[in-house]
């Protein structure tokens, strides 16, 4: 009998083009997603060396990082415009399909891949973006790469990769009411640190993971990189299959049923072993808020900001001190007392229709606190259209939120959506690094529900105690 295998090993073995002892494997790439920021130098490299894109049909490009979310047809920033124009020209020259700023498929690359059914179980997927791990939610092996590797994949449809170690992130029990996938992944990173996944591919397993929707699974896998893991995935099951049914690039009809069988057979075998395992109990997790300058610096909403004098080591002490100073927080202060200036609902972590619906439920019939500027940025043009069909835009706008066009937006502020110096933002994105949302901006990562409630109250509130008004 064959040895039981993890999904990671199965996908890996199906993609090895060349293996030599003591070297990385040459791995075939099924899908290469491309955006405007990390690709220009790669296409230029191809041009300089007279090389072509080997498989334009396995490559898909969009514009997301730079795009304005208001008046998107007028791009004031000429450098941004040049970068987008460059992608347009490169895609024309190299025959790469592109969902540009005017295209109905445009959106954040990690939102549109799944939405179009390009993302499928068992695929190897790369993109010049660290949040490519998102696609792992479908049981794909998906990871971020640098621009030199983008060029390499464009030219060869392969990449040199050392076989990764495998790590089982086992989530026992169930998440409590009001506790979301975002809280779970923050709690995991908070507990095990921002580098526990370095050198590993993570597989998330356990009851709490299996009961998550695909949107929740994407939120989890998206933040694998914040734990240091280039890739994190979840074995495909019926939830995965049903999400993909009918998606444009997914197999159709009988082919779909065949594919579904094949996908489910990729799931990790009973008895397969991992190089390492960590465990966490879902029922102990509360809604989380980050207080510091990396995603591991998070606490339950009922908690207090850490005190550096309680730190375990000198380096931890100085790290906490630096973070408190940057964040303008006092050691020991309750996080729920912290007043906020901005709310950002969006990003490849939490900008899908399900996320927007949950946020809309919280704010329905209420008003954004006068001290708060709140924006909603749908993850894709399709999400925007679908949300408008359900009237979510009206709910947000009536509450005082700005309803924007799709893009990466204030997650990293490469467009005009920047949080000003010293101001504080409750954000559904993935990184609270110094300056991430703008030089001097202070980011607190939370779930869409927590962000919505914070917009109403002007400070962090425990969503489990927040009274949601009954709809009319």
């Amino acid at each position, binding site marked *: 009998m064959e040895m039981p295998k993890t999904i990671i090993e199965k996908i890996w073995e199906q993609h090895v083009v060349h293996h030599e002892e003591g070297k990385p494997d040459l791995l075939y790439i099924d899908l290469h997603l491309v955006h405007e*920021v*990390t690709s*220009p130098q790669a296409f230029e490299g191809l041009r300089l060396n007279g090389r072509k894109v080997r498989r334009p049909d396995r490559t898909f490009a969009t514009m997301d990082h730079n795009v304005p979310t208001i008046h998107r047809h007028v791009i004031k920033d000429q450098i941004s415009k040049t970068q987008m124009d460059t992608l347009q020209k490169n895609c024309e020259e190299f025959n790469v399909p592109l969902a540009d700023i005017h295209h109905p498929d445009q959106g954040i690359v990690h939102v549109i891949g799944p939405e179009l059914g390009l993302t499928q179980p068992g695929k190897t997927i790369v993109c010049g973006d660290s949040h490519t791990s998102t696609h792992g939610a479908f049981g794909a092996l998906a990871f971020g790469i640098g621009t030199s590797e983008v060029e390499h994949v464009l030219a060869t449809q392969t990449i040199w990769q050392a076989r990764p170690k495998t790590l089982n992130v086992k989530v026992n029990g169930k998440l409590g009411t009001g506790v979301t996938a975002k809280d779970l992944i923050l709690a995991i990173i908070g507990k095990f640190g921002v580098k526990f996944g370095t050198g590993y591919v993570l597989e998330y397993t356990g009851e709490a993971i299996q009961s998550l929707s695909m949107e929740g699974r994407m939120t989890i896998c998206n933040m694998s990189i914040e734990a240091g893991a280039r890739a994190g995935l979840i074995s495909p099951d019926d939830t995965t299959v049903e999400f993909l049914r009918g998606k444009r690039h997914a197999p159709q009809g009988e082919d779909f049923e065949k594919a579904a069988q094949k996908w489910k057979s990729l799931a990790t075998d009973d008895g397969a072993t991992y190089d390492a395992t960590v465990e966490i109990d879902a029922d102990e997790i509360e809604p989380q808020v980050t207080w510091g300058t990396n995603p591991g610096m998070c606490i339950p909403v009922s908690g207090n900001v850490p005190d550096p004098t309680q730190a375990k080591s000198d380096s931890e002490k100085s790290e906490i001190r630096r973070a408190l100073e940057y964040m303008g927080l006092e050691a020991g202060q309750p996080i729920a007392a912290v007043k906020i200036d901005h709310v950002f609902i969006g990003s490849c972590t939490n900008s899908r229709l399900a996320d927007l619906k949950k946020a809309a439920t919280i704010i329905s019939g209420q008003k954004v606190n006068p001290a708060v500027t709140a924006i909603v940025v749908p993850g894709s043009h399709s999400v925007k259209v679908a949300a408008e069909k359900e009237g979510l835009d009206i709910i947000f706008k009536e509450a005082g939120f700005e309803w924007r066009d799709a893009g990466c937006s204030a997650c*990293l502020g490469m467009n005009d959506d920047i949080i000003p110096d010293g101001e504080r933002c409750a954000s559904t994105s993935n990184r609270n690094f110094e300056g991430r949302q703008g030089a001097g901006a202070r980011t607190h990562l939370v779930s869409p529900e927590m962000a919505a409630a914070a917009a109403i109250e002007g400070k962090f509130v425990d969503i489990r105690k927040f009274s949601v008004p009954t709809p009319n």
Partner: protein
Amino acid sequence: MEPIRKHEGLVYPLNRSNIDTDQIIPKQFLKRISRQGFGEFLFYNWRFDSKGEPRSDFSLNFPKYNGTSILVAGDNFGCGSSREHAPWALQDYGFRVIIASSFADIFYNNCTKNGILPVQLTEDQISELIDQAEAKSYTITVDLENKRVYDNHNFDASFDLPNYQREMLLNGWDEIAVTLTHKNKIDKFEEEREFS
């Protein structure tokens, strides 16, 4: 890319952990479409104030580190975004070697594709290098052929890195050209998969 075999240079100590690529080069500088000229934006928000004036309290601005080419930092260096602009900025500023107690995976890879040598040493060895470089003008030699880091006195440490990356760095190979020597295998792989 330019090969790197042995490099002697002035050490710049940056005693922090989890230095993410957003700090190495902030997002507002990622809009260029060339690989050149990112050095002036290296550690921008730490090096410059809101008016664009150099901050006198950030050590890279200290005259004693002028001409540095070896950066020594703490744990998990280069975490976060996959932006290759980070190694481009480090290289353009003049860094050829980054020494840290651990590196983020994508950043590590990106360095080796650009002729920057990432060297992993123990926390104690890092502390020693940082202490020396904070106290005085401190020069060390990094020898990739023999996988050694040493100074003119007592410091002598060995390091490891995967042989593949070592060969690439030593020879400055164009990786795509290397891969294309396996073109037949890629063709065959595609044929078998698509017609099976």
